[in-house]
C-alpha cells in the first residue's frame, strides 16, 4: 500500500485536509519517544488504498525543534511514496520556504494550494499553472474546508506515488560563493551538504543566514510571477483592525481574562453533569456486577477486586474524559479562530518573567481545575523546552480535588480565617511554580534559549465539525494511553488495602497500613508522623479526592464527626503542614500517566514525582518546624 504524507506550516488546513482525505478512519498516537502527535489514516482513491500520515506542522526542515526533526527523519528515513505539501495560498511567500527545501531534497511532492476560497475574498489571485511550471511539481488548488479539489489532489498524489521510480530532479538554487565552495568541499548530495552547513558546520549561523536569503530570493521571484493583487487594499486589513483592539490595546486584557474564564467554566462547569453521569453509571455497573457475580457464586475476593478495585479505576478514567473533550473543543475553536495566538501574545510579558512562553498561561490556569487537561493543553506549545517545563509546573496548580482537604483541615482548625488559609495555599503553589520554572529552565534546558516568535494567523470563523472531531480524538487517545496505567494503579491500591486476606479494608493490619507505619517516622519532622496520615497520602497519590475519604475510613467517621476526630487527633500546626504537603507532594496517578503520555517517556513522570515529593516534604517540614520554633500556633498536645 503506497504511503502519502502531509507536510506543511502550522495553520494551513493540514488537519482539515487529513480529515477530508481519510474520513474518520484514522488513529492518533505519538511519534516514538517524543512529545509530538502522530496521526495515520487510510484513503481510498480509484479503488486503491493509500496510507496517509500527518506530519507535524513546521515552518522549515532546518529548525532544531522536535517537530522539525520528526518531519525530517520521517521524510529521509521512511521515504513516503509521495508528500503532499499543503500551502496557504493567502500567505504564499512564507509557505513556499518549506516547499523549496522539499524540492531541494528532490522529494516527490504534490503541492496543495489551500485556502483558495479565501484567496479571492482577500483580493489576491494566484496563477496555479504558472506556479506549477516554476516549481516543476503538480500544484492542485484546494479548499480543505469545502472539500473542493480534494478528489483531484488524491488523484494527482496517487499518480505521483506510482512514478516514484522516476527520480525527481532536485531544485538547484545558486548560493553565495562561500556557500557553494563549501558544498563542493563536503562532497555530499547537495541537500545533505546544505543541511550540514545550516545546522552543524562551524560558523553555521552565517551559512544558515546566507542559505535562507538565497531561498527567499528565489521565492520572491516566484511570488512576483504568480501572485496578483486584484484590490488596492491590504488583505489583512480586517485582522489588523481587530488586533488593534484585541491584541494591542488595554482592552485586550479584560477580554483575555474573560476568554480564559469562559474556557475554564466551559471545561469544568459544563463538564460537571457529564462527570456526574459517568460516575453514576459506574455506580450502577458496580451494583450490577456485585449482584450478578454473587449469584454466579464467584469467590468474594474476586468480586471485591472487580467491584471496588477495577470498576472505580475505570470510573476515574471515564470521569476525566468529559473535561478533556470540552477543553479540546474550546481550545480548537480558539486556535482556529486565531485567538489562541493573541492570548499567548498578551500573556507573554507576564509568563516570560517565569521563564515561560506566553502559550503556557492557559494550560496553567486549567491546572486549577484539574491538572490532567491542563497538561494535555500544553500540547499547544510548539517548543519542547517550553512544553516540558509547563508540564512540570502544572502539578503546582492546586486542582479542585485538593480543595476538600483544605476545607476539612482549615474548617476544623482555622474557622475564622478559612478562606485566607486556602487562598494562601493556592498562592504558595503559584509562587513555587514561579521559582521552579526559573530553576528548571536554568538546570534542565540551559542550552535551549526560551524565545517568543509566534505567527498571528488571520482571524477566521472556526469550524464546529473540525473542533468536535479533534476533541473526540483527544479524549479517545487519553482513554487509550492513560487509561491502563490509571486502572492498574487502582487495582494495586485495592490489593494493598485488602492483603493479607481477611483484614478490614485499609486497616492498620493491611499491607497498606504496614507501609503507612513504615513511612510514618519519615513524616514526623513534618508533624504528622502517624500511619493514618501516611495511608491518606498514599491513597492521595491515586487521586487527591481519596485523602479525605481515606481519613474517613481509618478514623471510621464522616462529615462533622470526621472533623471532630481530626480536631482531637491533629493540631493547627500539623494541619497546616499537612495541607502544604497535600498541595505539593505528588502528582496523582492520572497526572503521572498523562505526563508520561505527553512527554513520551516515564522519565519525566518519575522526575515530577521525585521532585514534588521531596519539595512537598521539605516545605511541610519547614512550615511545621517554623511554627514550632516560633511558637506561632499550638503544634502538639
Amino acid at each position, binding site marked *: 500500500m503506497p504511503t502519502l504524507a502531509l507536510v506543511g506550516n502550522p495553520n494551513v488546513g493540514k488537519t482539515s485536509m487529513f480529515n477530508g482525505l481519510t474520513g474518520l478512519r484514522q488513529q492518533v498516537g505519538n511519534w516514538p519517544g517524543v512529545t509530538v502527535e502522530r496521526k495515520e489514516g487510510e484513503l481510498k482513491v480509484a479503488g486503491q488504498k493509500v496510507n496517509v500520515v500527518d506530519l507535524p506542522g513546521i515552518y522549515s526542515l532546518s529548525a*532544531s525543534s522536535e517537530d522539525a526533526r520528526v518531519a525530517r527523519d520521517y521524510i529521509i528515513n521512511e521515504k513516503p511514496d509521495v508528500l503532499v505539501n499543503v500551502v496557504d495560498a493567502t500567505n504564499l511567500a512564507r509557505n513556499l520556504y518549506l516547499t523549496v527545501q522539499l524540492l531541494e531534497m528532490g522529494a516527490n511532492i504534490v503541492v496543495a494550494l489551500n485556502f483558495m476560497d479565501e484567496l479571492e475574498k482577500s483580493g489576491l489571485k494566484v496563477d496555479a499553472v504558472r506556479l506549477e511550471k516554476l516549481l516543476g511539481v503538480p500544484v492542485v488548488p484546494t479548499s480543505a474546508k469545502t472539500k473542493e479539489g480534494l478528489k483531484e489532489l488524491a488523484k494527482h498524489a496517487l499518480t505521483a506515488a506510482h512514478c516514484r521510480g522516476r527520480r525527481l530532479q532536485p531544485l538547484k538554487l545558486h548560493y553565495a560563493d562561500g556557500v557553494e565552495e563549501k558544498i563542493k568541499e563536503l562532497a555530499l548530495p547537495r541537500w545533505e551538504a546544505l543541511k550540514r552547513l*545550516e545546522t552543524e558546520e562551524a560558523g553555521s549561523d552565517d551559512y544558515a543566514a546566507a542559505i535562507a536569503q538565497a531561498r*527567499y530570493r528565489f521565492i520572491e521571484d516566484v511570488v512576483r510571477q504568480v501572485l496578483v493583487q486584484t484590490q488596492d487594499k491590504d488583505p*489583512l486589513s480586517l485582522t489588523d483592525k481587530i488586533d488593534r483592539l484585541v491584541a494591542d490595546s488595554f482592552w485586550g486584557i479584560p477580554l483575555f481574562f474573560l476568554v480564559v474564564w469562559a474556557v475554564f467554566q466551559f471545561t469544568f462547569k459544563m463538564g460537571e453533569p457529564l462527570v456526574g453521569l459517568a460516575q453514576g453509571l459506574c455506580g450502577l455497573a458496580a451494583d450490577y456486577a456485585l449482584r450478578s457475580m454473587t449469584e454466579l457464586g464467584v469467590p468474594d475476593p474476586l468480586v471485591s477486586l472487580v467491584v471496588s478495585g477495577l470498576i472505580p479505576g475505570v470510573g476515574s478514567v471515564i470521569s476525566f474524559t468529559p473535561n478533556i473533550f470540552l477543553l479540546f473543543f474550546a481550545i480548537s475553536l480558539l486556535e482556529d479562530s486565531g485567538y489562541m495566538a493573541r492570548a499567548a501574545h*498578551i500573556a*507573554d510579558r507576564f509568563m516570560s518573567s517565569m521563564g515561560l512562553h506566553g502559550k503556557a498561561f492557559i494550560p496553567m490556569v486549567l491546572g486549577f481545575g484539574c491538572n490532567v487537561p491542563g497538561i494535555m493543553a500544553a500540547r499547544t506549545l510548539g517548543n519542547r523546552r517550553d512544553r516540558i517545563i509547563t508540564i512540570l509546573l502544572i502539578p503546582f496548580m492546586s486542582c479542585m480535588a485538593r480543595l476538600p482537604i483544605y476545607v476539612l483541615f482549615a474548617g476544623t482548625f482555622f474557622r475564622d480565617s478559612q478562606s485566607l488559609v486556602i487562598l494562601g495555599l493556592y498562592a504558595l503553589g503559584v509562587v513555587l511554580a514561579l521559582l521552579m520554572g526559573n530553576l528548571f529552565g536554568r538546570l534542565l534546558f540551559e542550552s535551549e534559549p526560551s*524565545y517568543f516568535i509566534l505567527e498571528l494567523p488571520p482571524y477566521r470563523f472556526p469550524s464546529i465539525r473540525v473542533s468536535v472531531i479533534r476533541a473526540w480524538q483527544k479524549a479517545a487517545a487519553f482513554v487509550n494511553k492513560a487509561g491502563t496505567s490509571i486502572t492498574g494503579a487502582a487495582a494495586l491500591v485495592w490489593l494493598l488495602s485488602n492483603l493479607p486476606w481477611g483484614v478490614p479494608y485499609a486497616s492498620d493490619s493491611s499491607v497498606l497500613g504496614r507501609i503507612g507505619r513504615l513511612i510514618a517516622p519519615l513524616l514526623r519532622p513534618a508533624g504528622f508522623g502517624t500511619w493514618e496520615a501516611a495511608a491518606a497520602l498514599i491513597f492521595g497519590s491515586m487521586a487527591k479526592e481519596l485523602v479525605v475519604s481515606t481519613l474517613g475510613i481509618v478514623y471510621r467517621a464522616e462529615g462533622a464527626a470526621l472533623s471532630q476526630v481530626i480536631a482531637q487527633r491533629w493540631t493547627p500546626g500539623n494541619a497546616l503542614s499537612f495541607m502544604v504537603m497535600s498541595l505539593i507532594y505528588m502528582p496523582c496517578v492520572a497526572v503521572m500517566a498523562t505526563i508520561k503520555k505527553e512527554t513520551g517517556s516515564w522519565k519525566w513522570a518519575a522526575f515530577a514525582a521525585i521532585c514534588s515529593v521531596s519539595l512537598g516534604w521539605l516545605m511541610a517540614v519547614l512550615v511545621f518546624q517554623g511554627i514550632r520554633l516560633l511558637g506561632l500556633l499550638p503544634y502538639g498536645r
Partner: protein
Amino acid sequence: MWGKHRFRRGQYGMSPARSAARSAHLLSLAELRPGERGRIVSLRAPGPVLRRLLEMGVLPGTEIAVKGVAPLGDPMVIAVKGYRLSIRKYDGSGVLVEPTGTDRILYTKDVSNS
C-alpha cells in the same frame, strides 16, 4: 515601564562594527514604534532564535512594519512577508533595521522590495 534603553544596548553583545553601523541611523527592531517601517540590514541572535527568525522570513533585505505592541509593553506585532508575527523585543533586539518611513497604511506588497 519598558524604557527603550533596555534594548538599545543590544542583547547579544555588539561588535564594534555594529556600533559604528548604528551611528548611520540603524535601529534595532525592538526600537521601532507602531507605524514605523524599515528594511532589515543584519541579523544576530543565538542559534535557535536565529533559525526561527530565518524560517519565518525575518532576514536581511526584508521590509517589515511594526503594527502594534501588546498591552503590557511586550511583545510587538510586525508585518513581514505579508503575514503577522508577534515577537518579544528581546528576541528582536539583534535585528538591525534601516527605517524607511512611518505610515498607517502598512504593507501593500513587500514582494517587490527585495
